[in-house]
């Protein structure tokens, strides 16, 4: 049961982690605009964050596949 759950659990973790990353990047962009950054830089920022986001995604996928736990708490105790 534990191994069947693992890909699903990893997917959930990745969604949450990417939620964190997306929130942080969007917050940085909106803060910069709020502090007076000109709108014309928006596209550039979007691209930079898109690339960084993709790198983060690759890292999280690799990291979680390698290290994510395999035992189901229920069956262990």
């Amino acid at each position, binding site marked *: 049961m*534990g191994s069947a*759950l*693992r890909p699903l*659990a990893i997917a959930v973790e990745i969604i*949450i*982690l990417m*939620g*964190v990353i*997306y*929130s*942080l990047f*969007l*917050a940085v962009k*909106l*803060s910069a605009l*709020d*502090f007076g950054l000109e709108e014309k830089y928006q596209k550039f920022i979007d691209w930079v964050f898109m690339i960084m986001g993709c790198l983060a995604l690759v890292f999280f996928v690799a990291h979680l596949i390698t290290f*994510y*736990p*395999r*035992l*189901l*708490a*229920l069956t*262990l*105790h």
Partner: protein
Amino acid sequence: MDSLTRFWTGQEVYIMKVFLPIIIGFLVLFMGLLAIFALSIWWRHLRLWHLGKEENRSDRGALRLKSLLAVTFGHLRFWKELYPGAMHFLIFWGAILIFLGKIVRLFSYPVGLTNPPQAIFQYASFVSEIGGLLVIIGGCMAVYRRYIVKPSRLETKPTNTLIYLWGAVLLMTGYFVKGYRIAIIGGSVVPDWPFWSPLSYLISRFFLILPTDPLNELLVWHRVLIHALPAFLFFAYVFITRTPLQHFFLSPINIYFRNLKLRGVLAPIPNFEEAETFGVREISEFTWKQLLDLEACTNCGRCQDVCPAHLSQKPLSPRRMTQNLKDHLSREGPKLLATLPDQRQPEAIMGTTVSEDELWACTACMACEEACPVYVEQIIRNIDLRRYLVLVETKYSSEVRLTLKNLEKSNNPWGMGRGLRTDWAKELGVKIFSQLPDPKILFWVGCCGSFDARNQKVAISMVKILQASGIQFGILGNEEGCCGDPARRIGNEYLYQTTAQANIEILKRYGVKTIVTLCPHCFHTLKNEYPQLGGDFQVIHHTQFLMELISSERLKLTKPINKVITYHDSCYLGRANQIFEAPRRILKSIPGLKLVEMERHRNRSFCCGAGGGRMWMEEHIGTRINQMRTDQAIEVKAELIGTACPYCLTMLFDGIKEKGKEETMAAYDLSELVDQSM
């Protein structure tokens, strides 16, 4: 092992090794963040408000505090709309519970208050869990409404989406931290978990865990960091940038400094003769409170949903206007602050941020202010902008020009000769107040009652009632002038003040003490605005007076009127002066009449379209507001529309005609119905 000890089984290591260092780090950084927050309040908000003009809003501190607590914690003004009210209530109280639970857990351990195992830690855990659940429910309701229902009043900006997403992530990661801890320790081993941490316990049942304790410790450490770091950055984002969530401190400040006077009372321009400019041209000419209003607006759109101008497709939305002015302030404010006062070249508001059509569309009906949960004041701000247009730029439509000219020349908006003012009363034997030996009551007829054919009938009915009740009353006759309401709401404060002062002088000369008015606009102006110019009189609206006559049985209503009637609350009688009962009690005293309410009644009443000087302007854009109100009366199958205002009567009378319903429907002033029933 007692239940408390069992609850702590296996937790100590995580608390000491994992949480404590992160908590300490978080707290140290948070102190720094609070200092930056304080600085940003001063730099980004207080300095901007200081650009505005002086205004005293610090009177009656205890009352302000009481209403602040009631509105904030009891959500008094939110419950007017059940769904958004419940949604905000859940999120607000959920967040408070999470915060309380966290605070107890954050601070109790380091200071030894709850050196485990102690029960308060369990309670705090429970409180946080329930708080989180409330936020989840409220958040889901908010997401459903904003992204699926999409009501037109809600404007979704990227920052709104960010806050929902970030909030969801923080909640999930928070539950994951505790859930994983429970999974490692073993929920079944510690049977108290399901009770004290129900949600986390549920999640824990599905967690995969690592085989050894050190590895699990490492994963908990990861999880805590993934929760704590974004949480800290979330606070930083909310504290420092202008996000909608800043309403958590801006709204309470605005509620505290709210207007405690009667709604709709305009302030006079002080030192009129010496003033160099009038009204508001640029942002720093607003008062500090008006600037605070702009920042406190949460963009919730409640005002837009009730605005007759917006609903009738005029280019005005009070929400959008407030938000546009807020952007104007954020854009122009820092520029002004960076320049020496004598070198400032501030951008004009009219034409850049607010359009003339938008401004003139406002009927000054106060529905927006009634609906606003954080007491943003719109009317005075709009009139300030109109004052600049009218008094400085002399920019207004030809209809407004004609009205103002008529008021100046003939002291009434129609431009009728002053000598014609009493023509309606010729056959009635009405006495002139100054000629009465012992006059008790002055009947203030108003311009509509004096000159408008439809409203003259109302004045006649009122005279008949007064005579039948044996009241000693008189009228000012040709000495009566316009009360000044149209000039004031249009923005010509100079004309208002000269008109009002002339009236006050006459009223004082004749020793007038008690005035009965037909018109809520005259009533409001004489009662609430003349005192600003030294005119203190007892002013009674005719519905109050009639009610008094009926209750004291000086007036007996015997003839039945077997009709279904709906009562239209006038904005200046109802919302401004809170007179809702007297008109209804009069209607209930008339035999045969059956009163049905329209959906929008009392405080929520829908304007007839004539307030704010709009009585004297054409409605070129969108649907006619009077037709919309007539439709609302048709919807409840009313045969009669009762009013207590000559403006409303005119508008609804026209509305019935325009809708082709003259055969089945009629509009009457309440005094006419009383007259018919006598």
